[in-house]
């Protein structure tokens, strides 16, 4: 009954500021593209150094079906890795919150995973699993994703107020019920923040993992092969696709966070 009033109250004042915030970067981006085009056309910058935006756009149009197919492969790898890493990160953090032994074992392990450069992992995984499978790329993504998800989930699970702790003890709740009724729901905003941070990182990891051999069906491998064949505008076209894919993941993560942590407005009149 109060939902519509809450929704309109929120949507009304929020819409205009967000539009105000959107147009300056858009205008700046267009201006930069125009400037880039003019500089390349009139100063005679060689194409291998910097192709003109119009040349890149032409390549995007020409190679559009390929771009779509390769973006789907890379995006698929990123998504699978993201889901696996997310589930692992949340699960591990839950176990760590419940048992001190798991916590003491997992925390340094995850910190170590944070320090592992993906460029080091990717070639090793590729040789381990062979070059005819997507598994090594997905694994690389999972390793990258697990870290922010684990860290922020663990932080969220630790945010239990003393009064909630006392309450659940007084209610004779089991550790499982404590997790289900208090710890986990309380940690949801933190978990979603972890997901938002991990989503764009998963795309980066999926692309970089392709630079180290294996199947030649993703955006990363197309960028390297186009560049190797001196098809610079074509390489840039795949870079543009990578940027868009990363943005899509970022926005999806942001949207998921907004939807899940949408809190009702304070104190109804």
């Amino acid at each position, binding site marked *: 009954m109060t939902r519509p009033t809450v929704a309109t109250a929120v949507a009304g004042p929020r819409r205009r500021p967000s539009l105000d915030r959107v147009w300056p970067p858009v205008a700046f981006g267009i201006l930069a593209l125009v400037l880039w085009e003019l500089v390349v056309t009139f100063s005679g910058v060689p194409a291998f150094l910097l192709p003109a935006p119009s040349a890149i756009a032409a390549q995007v149009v020409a190679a559009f079906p390929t771009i779509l197919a390769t973006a789907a492969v890379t995006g698929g790898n990123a998504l699978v890795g993201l889901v696996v890493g997310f589930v692992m990160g949340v699960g591990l953090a839950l176990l760590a919150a419940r048992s001190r032994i798991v916590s003491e074992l997992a925390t340094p392990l995850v910190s170590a995973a944070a320090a592992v450069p993906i460029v080091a992992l990717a070639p090793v995984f590729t040789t381990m699993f062979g070059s005819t499978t997507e598994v090594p790329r997905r694994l690389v993504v999972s390793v990258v994703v697990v870290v922010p998800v684990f860290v922020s989930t663990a932080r969220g699970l630790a945010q239990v107020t003393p009064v909630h702790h006392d*309450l*659940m003890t007084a209610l*004779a709740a089991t550790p499982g019920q404590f997790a289900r009724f208090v710890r986990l729901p309380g940690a949801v905003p933190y978990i979603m923040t972890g997901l938002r941070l991990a989503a764009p990182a998963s795309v980066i990891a999926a692309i970089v993992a392709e630079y180290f051999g294996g199947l030649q069906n993703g955006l990363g491998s197309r960028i390297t092969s186009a560049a190797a064949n001196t098809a610079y505008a074509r390489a840039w076209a795949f870079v543009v696709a990578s940027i868009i894919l990363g943005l899509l993941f970022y926005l999806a993560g942001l949207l998921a966070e907004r939807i899940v942590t949408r809190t009702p407005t304070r*104190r109804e009149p």
Partner: protein
Amino acid sequence: MNAVELTGVGKTFDTGARGPVHALSGIELRVEPGEFVSLIGPSGCGKSTLLRVVADLEQPSCGSVVVGGKSARQARLDQDYGIAFQQAGLLEWRTVVANVELPLHVHGVAKAERRARAAELLALVGLAEFAALRPSQLSGGMQQRVAIARSLATRPKLLLMDEPFGALDEMTRERMQAELLRIADETGAAVLFVTHSIPEAVVLSDRVVVMSPRPGRITDVIDGRRPRSGSGPAGRGVDGALPDSALPDSALPDSALPDSVLADEDVDGVRESAEFFAAVTEVREALRKGSA
């Protein structure tokens, strides 16, 4: 059988370098069924610790704690008491009605049954129309009423309350006191109530237990001025619950209430009576003597 029976209870906190702190020492206290007992004293007198010992949230260093004829631990596991803290401690991700249901949810009561019970309790604290809201949409006083409704969910024979009105303004506080008296009257539950307000202790209690710090001990017990409805809980043989006939209805029908309901005027009458001021003076002097 007493609602609470404490014999020789002591509690020592080991603070390490600064040596042990004697939070409680030689506590002897009995709370009868249906009795309202307040614990009052300056900060650090151990009144909250004492309540937490009864709730089995702290373990006593010595002495025996019997709650409704059981060990404190067993009473907690059997959900024999309801508890309310100074903070309402509601879960923001649950609606108001789901917060009231929480104790029943934890103990596996079927959804329809616990929803009905929660609706009945929200009606009891006058918040029926706020059932679907989130806790943060309520004022502080309303949140505390939800917490009290939650503490009643399992129909406990004993209510433990740790300064539940401590954070409320004076007017809200007086209204809540009248409401708590009415609830205690209707449910026939014994109440152990921690406060640092002398008038609050006097108007609510059958007995006011005065405590003093270092070590936390009971220095005096003074009769309070608790107003009662005509019949009183002892004469009704209530098992700490509203009549079961009220259960299936989503709202509490007026007919389910006992004939003589404790009115706000009765409570206000007490607050303005000479006996009330005499008891307030008595408690104040006992507190002063204890801290001297």
